[in-house]
């Protein structure tokens, strides 16, 4: 398939951007480009066809089952798109006077109220652009909180060994040292190890609950108590909130800050389908540290204010605003009854699919029930047949099913992590189970076919090693290629 740059013809093109209607900003001396940007020049129809062709080669939630673990690929109702496209939302200029956009600010205010109710927090910012950005924002707040109190020795972030990779990455970005807390045999946090790790140098604990094994940690109150007793804060990674929303609140589990992924839990498109939104909520005592541009009630209605000890701005304007519109539409559609029902449906679907597969595949930490996701371990299958988690994942593609998350969490060998979500029907789950059973049978009879999968896609197996070792990150015309 030709790239946009290869399709480009000089002088062709279309004006998709509206004329400039604000005073032009001037860059500092020496900051501007010297040569014009080399952008592809295409007509609108060529551009449209290019993206349609790309879409046909991709697999989205609208193409089929998409059980990616820790990603909550639930269906995103069309209604949300319609609401986000209303001219009062979509046509608003970000520099508009707050007095003119009270409706937009009301959206942020109402979403904050509802999401604080769900999470047990007292205030929320919508600036972070996605989950990892939310983590960074929350950790910057943690850092400022400790420093403001003169507590400069709190340099360590505790994270379990089952944590999302973004947790230690965000902590490192923020200048903290990461301390890995091992899991216990049941898959939860090892309390003794946590007690040993927590101390006067602990800034915070980062925890997902239910965790990446799909297990709710029954010791959660003790866990947050241990960290609080050591003077640290507790941060809730909201990636798995879909399992418990409207049922149990992070704030009641002892967490001081949370981030949410509106683009997962609250049904807005993601994974190439649209920008994310990673709001951060906090308890009252951290409110003053929220990013600049927080919606508050003022004498002229709602306005954007900078909290007293703010960490500053983490994103331009109000973040990815229309994502919040879509999430609010979801919240208002489901209501106080529908939100917990969605969580219960997610947990039921995960357990249903898991029990269908029990006996065919080994389930990691599979003794009790799971929450919204579960992890298979194909270690034994690989030893017996040579068929790996990767092979099974690739074989699913040929059957019209998106692969689950592979090789994560790291504490499970040959891991496949499934999160079916509540929006899938029983028939879809039955079909997925049948496909997975057929693949398991084929591992004995024809493993070579599984090593060769997928065969129905435009690209079979990309050379991941080559891509990682020698990534090509920008297009260069053939004549200047090194």
């Amino acid at each position, binding site marked *: 398939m030709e790239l946009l740059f290869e399709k480009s013809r000089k002088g062709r093109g279309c004006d998709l951007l509206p004329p400039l209607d604000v005073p032009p900003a001037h860059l500092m001396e020496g900051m501007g480009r010297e040569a014009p940007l080399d952008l592809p020049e295409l007509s609108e129809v060529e551009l449209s066809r290019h993206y349609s062709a790309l879409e046909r080669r991709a697999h989205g939630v609208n193409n089929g089952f998409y059980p990616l673990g820790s990603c909550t690929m639930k269906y995103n109702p069309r209604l949300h798109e319609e609401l986000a496209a209303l001219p009062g939302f979509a046509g608003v200029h970000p520099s508009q006077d707050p007095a003119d956009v009270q409706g937009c600010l009301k959206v942020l205010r109402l979403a904050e109220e509802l999401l604080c109710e769900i999470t047990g927090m007292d205030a929320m910012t919508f600036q972070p652009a996605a989950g990892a950005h939310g983590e960074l924002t929350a950790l910057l707040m943690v850092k400022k909180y400790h420093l403001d109190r003169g507590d400069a020795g709190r340099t360590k972030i505790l994270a379990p060994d089952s944590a999302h990779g973004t947790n230690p990455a965000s902590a490192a970005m923020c200048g903290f040292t990461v301390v890995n807390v091992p899991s216990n045999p049941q898959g939860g946090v090892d309390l003794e190890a946590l007690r040993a790790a927590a101390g006067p140098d602990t800034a915070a604990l980062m925890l997902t609950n239910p965790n990446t094994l799909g297990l709710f940690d029954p010791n959660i109150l003790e866990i947050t108590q241990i960290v609080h007793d050591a003077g640290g804060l507790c941060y809730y990674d909201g990636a798995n909130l879909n399992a418990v929303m409207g049922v149990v609140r992070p704030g009641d589990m002892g967490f001081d800050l949370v981030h949410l992924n509106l683009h997962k839990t609250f049904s807005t498109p993601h994974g190439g389908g649209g920008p994310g939104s990673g709001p951060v909520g906090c308890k009252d005592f951290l409110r003053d540290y929220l990013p600049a541009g927080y919606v508050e009630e003022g004498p002229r209605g709602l306005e954007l204010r900078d909290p007293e000890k703010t960490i500053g701005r983490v994103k331009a304007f109000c973040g990815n605003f229309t994502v919040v519109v879509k999430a609010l539409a979801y919240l208002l559609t489901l209501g106080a009854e529908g939100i917990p029902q969605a969580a219960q449906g997610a947990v039921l679907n995960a357990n249903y699919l898991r029990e269908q597969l029990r006996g065919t595949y080994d389930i990691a930490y599979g003794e009790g029930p799971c929450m919204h996701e579960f992890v298979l371990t194909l270690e034994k299958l690989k030893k017996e047949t040579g068929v790996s988690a990767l092979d099974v994942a690739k074989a699913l593609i040929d059957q019209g099913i998106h692969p689950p998350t592979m090789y994560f969490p790291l504490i499970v060998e040959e891991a496949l992590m499934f999160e079916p979500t509540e929006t899938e029907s029983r028939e879809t789950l039955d079909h997925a189970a049948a496909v997975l059973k057929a693949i398991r049978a084929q591992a004995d009879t024809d493993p070579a076919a599984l090593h060769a999968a997928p065969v129905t896609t435009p690209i079979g197996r990309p050379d991941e*090693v080559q891509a*990682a070792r020698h990534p090509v990150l920008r297009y260069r015309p053939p004549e200047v290629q090194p």
Partner: protein
Amino acid sequence: MNTPEHLRYTKSHEWVLFAGDGTAKVGLTDHAQEALGDLVFVNLPEVGDALTCGETLGDVESVKAVSDIYSPVTGTVKAVNEDLLDAPESINADPYGAWLVEVEGITGQEELLDAAAYQALCAQED
């Protein structure tokens, strides 16, 4: 699986070669590179860094995951095999030639295994 007799091994799959002049070279075992798969990135300490046995000295990244490398000895980094930064695949091709760091001023070490004991450990893990 290749386990040369003249090396000592950790339970976390590093090898160590004591040179006799008080220095030692450290690398990843054949078993480790096999289990990790094709390596695409190596993160090593800097010359002069202090290492503590049993603690992380760096990490290696495969297509699947990032894995920590643990130091078999306590000491100071004398040299780093910088060729690996551009060619991490050397560890897959020649795990006992592709040393990661050379350590001097060694004051302590992990519980180390000889080739036979290490082989038994790997057999047990499989």
